[in-house]
């Protein structure tokens, strides 16, 4: 009982202090995993940013009803991963695409987007933020967005390579032909 109440108190504290929190001491100061964020992927599985520690990762931000830039981003990441695997003969880092439209991007909407692009968990996780400050997380990646009155978003594109501790190792905004510098960086990470 006491334990449950303590947990409740902790929950209240975290709801109360909100947004950006310094994470556990073990995370490097410049780790984007320091932003406390709980997500749920297209299979319904919940996870925290910090649970992604341990291996390099490709991260980008999307919203499922996006007609233009987001599909291009997904296809660009596919091309980058293929280029990396051709080059290194090893598996390219897995992908987490974080939605900045949690209201409309239900687990079902994300599952549909994943199936449309023929990508599957656990290599590809399309995730909706459920708790925490997704705008602060976006800002650490260099992504900004605002909803327009028609429900679309203005946003910029960043495909980011994170190292095993969530530090930004490389970044590209190129969604046409793969950015060769970025492919080289991801290959380097994959080969280690």
């Amino acid at each position: 009982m006491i334990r449950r109440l303590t947990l409740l108190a902790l929950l209240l504290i975290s709801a109360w202090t909100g947004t950006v929190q310094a994470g556990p001491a073990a995370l490097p100061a410049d780790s984007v995993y320091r932003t406390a964020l709980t997500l749920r992927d297209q299979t319904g599985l919940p996870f925290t940013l910090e649970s992604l520690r341990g291996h390099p990762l490709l991260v980008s931000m999307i919203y499922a009803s996006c007609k233009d830039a987001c599909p291009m981003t997904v296809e660009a990441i596919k091309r980058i991963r293929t280029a990396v695997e051709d080059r290194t003969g090893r598996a390219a880092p897995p992908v987490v695409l974080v939605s900045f439209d949690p209201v409309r991007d239900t687990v079902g909407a994300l599952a549909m987007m994943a199936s449309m692009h023929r990508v599957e968990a656990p290599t590809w996780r399309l995730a909706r933020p459920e708790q925490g400050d997704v705008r602060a997380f976006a800002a650490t990646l260099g992504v900004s967005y605002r909803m327009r009155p028609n429900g679309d978003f203005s946003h910029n594109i960043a495909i980011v390579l994170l190292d095993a501790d969530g530090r930004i190792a490389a970044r590209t905004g190129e969604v046409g032909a793969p950015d060769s510098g970025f492919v080289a960086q991801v290959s380097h990470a994959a080969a280690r």
Partner: protein
Amino acid sequence: MRACVLTLVLTLAWCGQVFADANYRQVAGGSFVSALSLDGARVPVPVAGFAMRSTPVTVAQYLAFVRAHPEWRRDRVPGMYAGGGYLASWAGPLLPGPAIDPQQPVTEVSWFAARAFCAGEAARLPTWYQWEYAAAADASRRDARGDPARQTRILQKLLERTGRAPAAVGEGSANRYGLHDMNTLVWEWVDDYAAMFVNADARDPGQGNLLKLCGGSALAFANRAAYPLMMRVAALAAMKPADVSGNLGFRCVRDTNRGETP
């Protein structure tokens, strides 16, 4: 039992913060035409009612926040959330020092820090539209932007303040919502500031809209009325979210969703 008491105390503290904050004033909702063509055509933008801090957050208030949230001390905060100039004018991490008036608006705070402060009082940063909408009012009118005498006064004050430490908050008269210092004291962070400079569904990353804002729009507004606003937008455009500046502060808002009062 102890946990029970703790929970109760926390809940009360939280409720107190939400419901009894004399720092906030109600801004009645409505619609207005933004001076910035952020969303294409210059059409009226609906703004739901909200509550806004009557003044920018002061040094004293920010100091209290840093005491309660030591992870935001300048010697502890990760550089990712607040760059090197964060609270740099303070004499110490918990000491603004004699050169700084506690009633000054706090400046040298990053966008991350400003958001954390607002979250700490169950609030958030205003959107650009909320800020611009609230700042359009004068003592009697909801939208006084067309008044050339007012615009001249604003511009004059901005010029006078250049190169000086900001004066104490709340010295000027309030606008019709009870808000002070909206146009003249400091630039203020807004929550969606970075996204004001990206294209809709952008293929090109970065600051595609910047030229449109600072070039096209400025020309389209080739009168002095929009000039203070353009200065403000230009100041924000130069900032990354971890950056700080000596004349950039902030205030917070809370959603209330009360309807328009005529």
